[in-house]
């Protein structure tokens, strides 16, 4: 029993990381239908910038804040320099641009910082907390709380605020969005800033557990993308549930079968779900009448 509990706890922790990455995908996707494969680099940048700002002597909260702000600015730059000039290109081309951007960001990070693994101290110490015979790190609670907070924030933003609706409207019909007075270029800028900021926040929260180096972004982006697809792309609820499910699947497979099969098991389940529900668990079927 304590064994199962331990697997569940570590599954939820990893799942919360995936959920945070997946939540970052939702905003840019909602604004433009683009899956931003540089999302993992935002997570990496959040961790790396915090590490180096902290090493330079800044207090940890300030270092984290700077990391989120700088990463958001990099997100805006990505939009202005790479996505906006290609406006009108098919979505697939834009997605390929984001893949290129992710390779570029990784290369520059390698040059500006280094290739080592880094970490900074956990926010509330490293003493494990005992829960029903299993243990969980205090930092894991920070990650889970972070994922929940971002989820609630995004959910309120997209369902309750006019700006959130304006983002949805922009992706649905850019022409009509302009005609009702929405500055669609600004909507894109805002969504890249928010996505990048959320990615960086994820990086700040998970670095004490998973460590960070210039190349951690790819794996995180892939898992986060899988989680978002499982839950239904564009839906914050889907990102949260998909992330946690993916984390649990991996942890249980690693615990009861073999850790070598954990990725395979997770992806087999995702494939099975997508066969039955191509829109993901919470994805909306698009209804168009002509």
């Amino acid at each position: 029993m304590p064994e199962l509990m331990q697997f569940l706890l570590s599954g939820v922790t990893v799942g919360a990381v995936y959920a945070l990455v997946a939540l970052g995908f939702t905003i840019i996707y909602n604004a433009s239908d683009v899956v931003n494969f540089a999302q993992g680099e935002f997570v990496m940048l959040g961790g790396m910038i915090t590490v180096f700002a902290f090493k330079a002597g800044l207090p940890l909260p300030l270092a984290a804040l700077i990391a989120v702000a700088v990463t958001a600015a990099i997100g805006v730059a990505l939009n202005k320099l790479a996505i906006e000039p290609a406006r009108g290109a098919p979505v697939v081309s834009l997605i390929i641009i984001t893949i290129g951007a992710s390779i570029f960001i990784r290369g520059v990070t390698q040059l500006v910082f280094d290739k080592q693994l880094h970490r900074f101290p956990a926010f509330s110490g490293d003493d494990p907390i005992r829960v029903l015979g299993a243990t969980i790190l205090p930092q894991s609670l920070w990650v889970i709380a972070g994922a929940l907070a971002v989820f609630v924030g995004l959910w309120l933003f997209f369902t309750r605020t006019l700006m959130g609706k304006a983002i949805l409207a922009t992706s649905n019909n850019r022409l009509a969005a302009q005609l009702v007075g929405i500055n669609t270029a600004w909507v894109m800028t805002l969504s890249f800033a928010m996505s990048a900021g959320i990615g960086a926040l994820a990086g700040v929260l998970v670095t004490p557990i998973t460590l960070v180096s210039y190349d951690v972004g790819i794996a995180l982006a892939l898992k986060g993308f899988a989680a978002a697809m499982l839950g239904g792309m564009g839906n914050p609820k889907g990102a949260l549930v998909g992330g946690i499910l993916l984390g649990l699947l991996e942890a249980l497979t690693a615990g009861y079968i073999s850790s070598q099969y954990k990725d395979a098991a997770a992806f087999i389940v995702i494939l099975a779900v997508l066969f039955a529900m191509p829109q993901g668990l919470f994805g909306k079927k698009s209804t168009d009448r002509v």
Partner: protein
Amino acid sequence: MLTVEGLRSRYGRIEVLHGIDLAVNSGEIVTVVGANGAGKTTLLRCISGVQPVTGGAITFRGDVITTVPGFKRLRRGLAQSPEGRQIFTNLTVEENLRLGAFLFSDDRVDRDMEDAFQMFPILKQKRNQAAGGLSGGQQQMLAIARALMGRPSCLLLDEPSMGLAPILVQQIFDVVSGLKKLDVTVLLVEQNAFGALKIADRGYVMETGRISMEGPAAELIADPRIREAYLGI
């Protein structure tokens, strides 16, 4: 209220508007009729600012707005209900209407929405449904209602009768002629020349990117050339 002088526009290397002159006075319903491909929609897209202009000037309420970006023109009172309705299909009817008043967040938004529901009761019934599931006529009503939520002083209407059943066409034209009472000036682009000229004060006939005739709507309806070319009488 709205003046267009020598307007030119092109798609790539092909010029589709070769110098359009047109004026709409406050309180009027003015219609631009013409065959498919004459450039009517391009003309409206230039006026609403979503199509690049290569020559000429557009003046609205005394200001030259030729280079004002599209999303800023509604702030000046110029709204467009575009061709093909262009509603937000994945949002609900109510969300579509609320976004029509994107620029506003005062009490009048709710009142305007009630007015819209009064004008089109079917939209009230379906207010919480996804707009993509509405029928063509209902989508057209939503497109007009959404444009009115932006509190325009001048409304550009592009082919509101396109693809609708005859009974709905009449209903839409009735609504358009009722806009006069709401102090909304209308520039109506239509292939259905007869229906449009019947409710309009003045009309322009457009052929391959040029204005070929203009005059009071009643005279245009009576003109033998128009009757032959556009009314099929």
